């Protein structure tokens, strides 16, 4: 997939497109270019392609195809869910989000605050970055109408107790909508709406070796109010001429997934352990409740930004925090939630379907060596 000298270990930021998807997208864009709303042959063909993709996405999450609404990505899906569910409320109410949600959730939640809702953040446990269920129990109110809890955190890989959290909030607030961001887990962990107890899930194609610019919401029960007005596509929930090639690739991506969880877990652990052994680094949240493809490692004495650049110069790509923060140097609220406020020595290594044993073994020996050099240089001769 990559030239020998490039080892891409930043699959939580985005993934390389599967060549089979690229080929199919290219075919659809050139041959099946009809507007899916048109009633002629090309339009019907486009609609047919969409129908298949919708079924594939629905199958991947244990839903019905008519519960799937395609969007331009997870950011839009999350904004639509948060703002749209809140818009259905007749008066300002109570919203809970976890303290480690993606900025797309945090920012929309801020807008809800501006609109008069009370939005509170539920903390996570310091040792494993999983939602503190006891505190959740004490925070939920009868009038809580929304809980946003991601399935897998994008910076640490911590798998969240979604099923249990959903049960807790539903018991206290039966009409509360549970929104689950499955961007990192889809295609890797079992994602079943019923089992998760989620009413709405949001997903993205580009974290699954699919294209950027495509995502979806899957909605069980009451639909959010639409964010846009327009030509009525996606049952009015998300109007706009459909991105048929991208949607087709998203469907295919749901089938192919992100790779074998056991292998990915072994690899992330090997990579993390190599840094622990030689640099006295520490894997964060490494346990059975860590998603197999993400490992965050704290390396004392090596600033993450410096580490990322040093490794990139040698063709090894990891990140400091999430990509969305990469160029804006926002403070990671996720690390803060772990009690690592202001920590600037945590890198994230994340794997995907196109990584292989060779890359992992090469990176396991190269990374500690390169970072040791960084640390030595910093300390001076």
């Amino acid at each position, binding site marked *: 997939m990559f030239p020998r000298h490039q080892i*891409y270990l*930043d699959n939580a*930021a*985005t*993934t*390389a497109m599967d060549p089979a998807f*690229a080929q199919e*997208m*290219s075919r659809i*864009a*050139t041959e099946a*270019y*009809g*507007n899916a*709303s*048109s*009633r*002629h*042959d*090309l*339009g019907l063909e486009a609609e047919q392609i969409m129908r298949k993709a919708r079924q594939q996405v629905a199958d991947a999450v244990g839903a019905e195809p008519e519960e799937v609404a395609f969007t*331009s*990505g997870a*950011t*839009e899906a*999350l*904004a639509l869910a948060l*703002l749209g569910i809140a818009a259905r409320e007749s008066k300002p109410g109570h919203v809970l989000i976890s303290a480690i949600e*993606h*900025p*797309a959730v945090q*920012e*929309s939640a801020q807008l809800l605050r501006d609109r008069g809702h009370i939005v509170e953040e539920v903390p996570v446990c310091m040792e494993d970055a999983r939602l503190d269920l006891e505190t959740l129990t004490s925070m939920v109110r009868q009038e809580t109408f929304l809980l946003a809890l991601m399935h897998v955190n994008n910076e640490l890989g911590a798998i969240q107790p979604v099923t249990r959290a959903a049960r807790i909030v539903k018991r206290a607030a039966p009409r509360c909508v549970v929104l689950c961001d499955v961007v990192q887990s889809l295609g890797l962990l079992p994602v079943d709406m019923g089992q998760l107890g989620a009413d709405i899930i949001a997903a993205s194609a*580009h974290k699954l070796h699919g*294209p*950027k*610019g495509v995502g979806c919401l899957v909605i069980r029960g009451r639909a959010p109010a639409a*964010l*846009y*007005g*327009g*030509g*009525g596509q996606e049952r009015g929930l998300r*109007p*706009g*001429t459909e*991105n048929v*090639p*991208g949607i087709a690739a998203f469907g295919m991506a749901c089938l192919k997934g992100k790779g074998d969880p056991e292998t990915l877990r072994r690899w992330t652990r090997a990579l993390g352990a190599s840094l622990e052994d030689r640099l006295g680094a520490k894997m964060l949240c490494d346990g059975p409740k860590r998603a197999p493809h993400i490992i965050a490692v704290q390396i004392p004495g090596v600033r993450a930004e410096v580490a990322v650049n040093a490794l*990139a110069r040698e063709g090894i*790509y990891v*990140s400091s925090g*999430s*990509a*969305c*923060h*990469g*160029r*804006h140097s*926002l403070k990671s609220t996720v690390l803060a939630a772990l009690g690592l406020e202001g920590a600037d020595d945590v890198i994230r290594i994340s794997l995907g379907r196109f990584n292989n044993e060779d890359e992992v073994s090469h990176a396991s020996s190269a990374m500690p060596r390169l970072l040791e050099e960084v640390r030595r240089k910093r300390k001076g001769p």
Partner: protein
Amino acid sequence: MIYLDYNATTPIASEVVDAMLPFLRGHFANPSSSYALADEPREAVVHARQQVAALIGASAEEVVFTSGGTESNNQALRGAARARRQQDGRKRLITSAVEHPAVMEVCRALSAEGFDWVVLPVDAEGRVHPAFLRRVIDEDTALVSVMHANNEVGTIQPIAEFAAIAHEAGAWMHTDAAQSVGKISTDVSDLGVDLLSIASHKIYGPKGVGALYMRRGLELPNFMLGAGQENGRRAGTENVLGIVGLGAACAHVGCELEAHGVQLQALRDSLHERLKDALGPEVRLNGPMEGRLPTTLSVGFAGVRAHALLAALEGEVMASAGAACKSGNEGISTVLKAMGVPESWALGTLRLSVGEGTTEEDVALAAEQIVAAFHGARS
């Protein structure tokens, strides 16, 4: 089969595919990543932004990428309405009666939030007259939004005149240019607009991407919130592939725009002539002879239903009865209704739209097939 539905969507141009291929096959990094692997996608977005800006005579930083024309229109209307209400309490929104649903539906929602939405009528050719606007605009007007060219009948609106009137009253001017960009000259300084919407898939680019021109200095509240991409104006990991495609599409349609317009107009007029020659007074043009998109021919057929015609044309000609997004429901198009087209003609109206792939042979054959379908449907 002959495709005469270019106003609904266009095939992707081969130059656009060529530009996109490297990004389909590689260059996949997230533009927000800090390492050099992300340089290529990041620079590609910069380049595409320049290409879009060049087509409409804007500066690159005035272009925001979106997921398409619908999002651009929604962001422009909702953003401008909220911004002006906050800034100076203005609450009036003025649109024409023939706007795309992506404008109409937003205004409907905004009027439920307390905005005062005024709809300007159009004349029998689908034109909005500046005098109509002068009559209703006031110091309370936040935004005037009139589409540059109509998607169903092709009527081109005098946007520059509307912009002057809007600015005189201190209002902002938006135009939905989804149908005009790449077909006629669409220059933001000539038009004098503050906001302008572009859809990629109408100009031989990919679906799922668009752009919004925001005049420098304009600040709108954003409703796609998240990690701060697009300078904080539109969050979400950039659709690099689509953005590259939109940029290439803008470069593609911008090249020899006028010459292409002349060619397309000749094809369209040939189609019209052939229909008139065969059917005489039984075919009737919707929209003006002059001041119409070179691609668009909306014609009514006497005594038949458009859906019967389209059914008879199945496997031969692909066209539509109105806008694509409404293809499903049979009813009179709101555009034709606003123009006062008699119901019998409106129900028998086809929108035939030509584009880059259309040839003289296509229009000759399509005309024959349409005429045959007409006679079949009538008998």
